[in-house]
């Protein structure tokens, strides 16, 4: 459990774009395709890994079309490399935009990170220094992407294992300023906040309380692996109580926001995954406390 800390102020802030609260969703994963198509489980929505569907015309795309017919979809990517110094990949963005249109995605998200330079892609969410130069650079690229996609980009806070000496501000200050200066939304991953707080030695509640509530349009909750000296963001287990506490704390500020449980390694059967996701119900705000527009699901 987290040590004593003042409770978060109860501030309901409708997100700036009035993106709807889609409820509690899970990631669309290959191992569950058969179950989802056959049983049509009562999941509120699915998050789709963009890169898994951008270059296929086969079975995965066919499944995605079926799922998008029946469930709300949000796209989530890992390769935009918004923090890189390489030029933006126009072909990637063109395909992303087409996929968003095809699935009628409610929003498109990626990570605050870089994935490679000099034309290479290491396919990892590499951390950035948090300083004025990086902020200006990233904000300009976010605005460019939003223009190309013709919708606000939503960025997720990464989990990280390295901090740079050249950082002059905290990650939550960087994200907050980026959201305002580049006019983007935030996907707040409360597990990532917890993982980074352990790895870097800050209080995760300060992070949660420091993010602009009206920019949070989605939550991620996930499990991790504690190696003793550091925590790895493995998405391979149930979420620990401290992560759920952070989630509840943040919900008190943002109201109910679309919530997704991530499980990407040792993926369990669909029912187990969905049950884990539905634990979020206990931590979300009571509907009566929600602002009217949230209650209507506007």
């Amino acid at each position: 459990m987290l040590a004593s800390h003042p409770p978060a102020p109860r501030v309901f802030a409708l997100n700036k774009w009035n993106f709807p609260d889609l409820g509690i969703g899970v990631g669309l994963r290959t191992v569950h395709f058969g179950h989802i198509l056959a049983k049509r489980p009562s999941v509120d929505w699915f998050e789709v890994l963009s890169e898994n569907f951008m270059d296929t015309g086969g079975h995965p795309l066919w499944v995605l079309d079926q799922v998008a017919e029946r469930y709300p979809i949000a796209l989530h990517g890992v390769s935009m490399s918004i923090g890189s110094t390489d030029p933006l990949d126009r072909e990637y963005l063109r395909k992303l935009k087409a996929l968003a249109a095809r699935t009628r995605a409610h929003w498109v998200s990626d990570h605050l990170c870089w994935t490679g330079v000099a034309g290479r892609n290491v396919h990892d969410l590499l951390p950035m220094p948090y300083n004025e130069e990086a902020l200006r650079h990233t904000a300009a690229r976010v605005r460019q992407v939003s223009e190309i996609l013709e919708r606000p980009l939503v960025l997720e806070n990464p989990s990280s294992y390295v901090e740079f000496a050249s950082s002059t501000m905290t990650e939550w200050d960087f994200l907050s300023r980026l959201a305002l200066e580049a006019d983007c939304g935030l996907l707040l991953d409360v597990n990532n906040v917890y993982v980074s707080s352990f790895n870097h030695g800050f209080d995760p509640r300060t992070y949660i309380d420091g993010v602009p509530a009206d920019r949070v349009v989605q939550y991620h909750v996930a499990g991790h692996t504690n190696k003793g000296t550091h925590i790895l963001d493995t998405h391979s287990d149930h979420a620990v109580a401290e992560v759920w506490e952070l989630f509840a704390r943040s919900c008190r500020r943002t109201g109910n926001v679309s919530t997704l449980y991530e499980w990407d390694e040792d993926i369990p059967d669909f029912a187990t995954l969905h049950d884990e996701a539905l634990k979020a119900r206990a931590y979300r705000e009571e509907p009566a406390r929600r602002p009217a527009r949230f209650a209507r699901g506007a």
Partner: protein
Amino acid sequence: MQEVVVHPGSIDEALASRGARAEVPPPRLGEIVLPSRTLSPAQRMEIYQRMYPLRMEEALEIDYPTLKAFLGESGFRRFVREYVASFPSRSYTLNRLGDHVPEFLRTARGLRHRAFCHDLARLELAMTEVFDEVETPALSAAAVGAVPADAWPSLRLRPIAAFRLLELRYPVNAYLQAVRDGARRRRPRRQDGWLAVFRRSYRVRRLELSRPAYRLLSDLASGVPLGEAVVAAARRRGPASAGQTQLYRWFREWMKNGVFMGLEGLEPSTNRL
């Protein structure tokens, strides 16, 4: 940081590598990366460096499971390390990481049964490509029935997008099936073979062909008019020749499997497809 992450050696070797040193001399790492309460800057960098080969191996194993079965755990790990050093990912998707595996294996040094591995990789790459190709509708029986008899010789039969032809020097298709079935695998032995890899109802299928059937399908897939391709098949001497009954069987099987998607070359007045 990237130079360190992709380095195949230990973290100390990675930090001392020429590329990394050009950015940050090892003694000055602490001026760039902060330590944590429990880890030094180098140990923190090592977390990323250790994950990189695992991610590459995982991606290549998805596309090349039979190659991995042939090479074994340690052999496959070594292959991945050498391959990604030669062909690092330059795409936003890991699905394209393995595109150069056949090319790499063709000339890979110190690899036992290199030609067999090369053929096996060609087969698995073809299966991956066919899996991801765009869906194109197969030629229907009704469309075939609507073609006037005298139009057939000049027609070109276009294969579906999810279609590949392979000429092989080793029986890798049988090996792949044996791995899937958990059956006993034979030692690689030279044996020519011909294969069509295609997708039907979103499932990847493999159809073994005789040499003459392969040559006829190759001609058709490359746009040779049907009449010309059939005459060439009938005129071929030796094992590549084909009789009328055989031709009929082949076409029936190919149509049944939906390997053609369209006809080209019909006169406008008869183009009712």
